[in-house]
């Protein structure tokens, strides 16, 4: 049977505020357990939450960047359940009235634009962490993360393959990082994803029974878990079984999902409006102020790069995937005026060096001025492309300017015609037989002469000039 996959994602993004959502404790990752805590985030008796306004503004930024409608009035609700990492016995979240709804993100699917709907964005506080003793039957509670602000972005079930799901996640991640409201670090849990997945016979309108997948901490794992789960569901259906609505955990080592709890075991969270907090009212002026502060978003930047710099969409995609990389690129272009050449060098050699060293563009030792200068030197013919390869590697290793490197290594290209004519004359004289062959029509021999000239000049001869002179002189 031919099946269609239906995927919806719930993304939790940690907001990059200095302090927690309802108290003034630090949000820094790490730290001695329970050192970033106070009576408020510890859920002590009688304490009260006071909302960090920045969290609302960050959520509004994300809402605007994903084409959502921001609700004029929204409220916090309590999600009630017991767990040792949840000190109050409830999580302050949003339920009936979230900050924003009805948005979308555009994906490029097989060359066509596809809209992935966003159901809602809401604000909430994070829970703490349990640390289980490896040797004794004891668990410890670290509440440093308790009260760190999160936004949850819930998509419509609009994705039809694990690739689309991964692509959607990358787009969201990119937007969050662009907005500078989330550091996007998946390993530290700043960007987390749960997936709802079901299958149905192609053409069927009704959704199949879905399962919820948790514990996937990389883009790759999201894709792997979805692929596994789709196969598992297909196998069940094809063999007369049925999919059960449940929550399943991805096991990275095992490469499989395992049942965590069934629908019957699901919590009744008893949501109700939090009486300790007042409704948040958002007027148009506030929205306009946030809108005015929005940076250029990845999609817009990509389109602008294609139009303004006349580079391929692929290049624009790579260069805008990281805001700092895009900024770096634009500076280089501004200085050298060669957009395509700049893109080639940046995407080729420079990014290869960075990838090899697992560095980001922020840590790139090559200054934008240096890369631009090097491109100019090639264009002026001062160095050859081949020389530039050596220069760029040195620039990366030492952080020196191209001029300094060229000088140190004596890499100056020979563009002096007189000097080259002398060299070529002596080479032709020494290789009369080959010269005769060339003249009789065996043009292959031309390469031999180029090689000889380069050897004699230690590669410093300007290749174009060598070609020109050789052709003329061999012709006699």
């Amino acid at each position, binding site marked *: 049977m031919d099946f269609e996959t239906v995927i919806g994602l719930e993304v939790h993004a940690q907001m990059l505020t200095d302090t927690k959502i309802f108290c003034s404790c630090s949000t820094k990752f790490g730290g001695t357990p329970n050192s970033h805590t106070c*009576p408020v985030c*510890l*859920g*002590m*008796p*009688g*304490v*009260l*939450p*006071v*909302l960090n306004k920045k969290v609302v503004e960050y959520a509004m930024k994300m809402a605007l960047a994903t084409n959502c409608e921001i609700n004029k009035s929204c409220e916090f609700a*309590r999600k*009630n359940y*017991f767990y*040792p990492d949840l*000190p*109050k*016995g*409830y999580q302050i979240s949003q339920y009936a009235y979230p900050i924003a709804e009805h948005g979308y993100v555009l994906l490029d699917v097989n060359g066509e634009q596809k809209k992935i709907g966003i159901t809602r964005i809401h604000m909430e506080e994070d829970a703490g962490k349990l640390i289980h003793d490896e040797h004794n039957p004891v668990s410890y*509670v670290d509440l440093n993360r308790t009260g760190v602000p999160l936004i949850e972005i819930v998509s419509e079930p609009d994705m039809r393959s694990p690739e689309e799901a991964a692509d959607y996640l990358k787009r969201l991640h990119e937007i969050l990082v662009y907005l500078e409201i989330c550091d996007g670090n998946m390993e530290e849990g700043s960007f987390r994803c749960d997936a709802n997945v079901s299958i149905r016979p192609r053409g069927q309108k009704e959704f199949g029974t879905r399962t919820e997948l948790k514990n996937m901490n990389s883009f790759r794992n999201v894709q792997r878990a979805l692929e596994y789960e789709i196969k598992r569901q297909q196998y069940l259906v094809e063999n007369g079984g049925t999919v059960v609505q449940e929550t399943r955990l991805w096991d990275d080592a095992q490469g499989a999902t395992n049942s965590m709890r069934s629908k019957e075991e699901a919590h*009744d969270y*008893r*949501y*109700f409006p939090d*009486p*300790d*907090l*007042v409704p948040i009212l958002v007027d148009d002026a506030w929205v306009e102020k946030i809108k005015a502060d929005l940076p250029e978003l990845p999609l817009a930047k990509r389109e602008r790069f294609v139009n303004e710099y006349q580079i391929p969409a692929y290049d624009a995609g790579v260069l805008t995937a990281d805001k700092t990389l895009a900024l770096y690129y634009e500076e280089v272009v501004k200085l050298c005026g060669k957009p395509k050449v700049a893109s080639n060098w940046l995407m080729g050699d420079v990014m290869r060096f960075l990838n090899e060293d697992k560095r980001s563009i922020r840590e790139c030792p090559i200054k934008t001025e240096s890369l631009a200068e090097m491109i100019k030197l090639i264009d002026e013919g001062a160095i050859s492309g081949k020389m530039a390869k050596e220069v760029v590697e040195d620039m990366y290793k030492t952080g020196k300017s191209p001029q300094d490197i060229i000088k140190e290594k004596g890499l100056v290209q020979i563009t002096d015609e007189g000097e080259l004519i002398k060299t070529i004359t002596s080479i032709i004289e020494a290789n009369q037989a080959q010269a005769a062959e060339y003249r009789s029509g065996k043009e292959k021999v031309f390469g031999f002469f180029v090689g000889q000239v380069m050897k004699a000049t230690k590669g410093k001869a300007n290749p174009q000039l060598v070609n020109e002179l050789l052709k003329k002189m061999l012709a006699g």
Partner: protein
Amino acid sequence: MEFNQSTIHELQEKIKNGSVTASQITESVFSRIDAVEERVHSYIRLMKENALAAAKKADEDIKKGDIKPLTGIPIALKDILCTKGITTTCGSHILHNFVPPYNATVVEKLTAAGAVFVGKANMDEFAMGSSTETSWFGPTRNPWDLERIPGGSSGGSATAVAADECIASIGSDTGGSIRQPAALCGVVGLKPTYGRVSRFGLIAFASSLDQIGPFTKDVEDCAIMMNVLAGYDPKESTSVNAEVPDYRQFVGRDIKGWKIGIPKEYFIEGIDPEITAAIQQAIKVIELCGGVCVDISLPHTQYCVAVYYIIAPAEASSNLARYDGVRYGFRAADVRELLEMYKESRRQGFGAEVKRRIMIGTYALSAGYYDAYYKKASQVRALIKKDFDEAFKKCDVILTPTTPTPAFKIGEKTDDPLQMYLSDVFTISTNLAGIPGISVPCGYSTSGLPIGVQFLASHFEEGKLIQIASAYEKNAKIEKRRPAL
């Protein structure tokens, strides 16, 4: 007269003219405690050493001429208010060993005003009760008749004032927990507007209803206390940043021409005839003061108790979830795993009434029942509030009985929660509407039990309450009796 029997304003005069020291006042309070506390049981914890030290410090300040509004005045705190470094139990086993690392905002304010804290007053467990019988530390007795309850949940705060075991005290009122015990113990008790006094550090029962207020020996003291307690607190989101008047200016002003609303729904069958008679008498006094009584209607009054017993337990079920034995308070011993630890800690840690309300509240918020209970109750609550908004277009202040009966016997209603809940029938609506209310002594039953009259005003009109209560107090000339202890 002993110092401990005096009011704040009387003592302030004496302190200023040097005829008494703060230490003498505090000592007189503790000698009274030595004499009667065993029988009354106003306190869960006494803070004698702290109090004597604070009094000594107050005397030094007085010598320097630094006299603040409550300098040297012994005050009792309901044990629902967090006190830094001092065990705060909320009347519960589950918090029997909890020592807060912070002060409630009102504790900070009282400290800054020079108050001397006598101790932590007894209360119904988590303020859930109308008789102070649900306290894990045993019941408080009414000083007017030790066989009777003092009201609740702030019973200890009321008796401490009534039995002169302090000069004034702090309570909290979620459905009448200040006004009802004030009435049953013959003292003045005020529940301010929701948002007027900071709730930070008040252990939550029902967050949208809880409000802190004072118990005092007369209305002027009530004004003095409100001057200290009222005001915006950035630590509380529901705190209202509205101007705070000097409440003392309302003391002694007349109420000529004021319209006094008499809601027909509060004069119903089932009220003790002695209460009815006392309230009729109070109405006459108010008319003699120049007040004009007008008949008003609060049509949704009959739903108040039902609405309250959905909303308050719903909020409580969530507020009390934090008492899980993980971080502080009581944790059951000999448990093997997490769920058992939760269940046993809470089973052994909470009393029956608290468990009953947690269950009612959990049920009211459950999937499939939320709309029928919590949501419906919230909608009716809005109608109750609207009733008052309409009523205050026709009158300045509303007058009602505070309680349907005088103090009942200990044990009389403990097996009948519904009867117990009905003892708050006249005070609950105030909390649902968020408006302020005051109970003032208005006489005694033939058996000598105090009776209270309640005045209600619109949001942030505590000044009006002080004004009418003061005018009433002055003109009613209620015989000043002291409980025979």
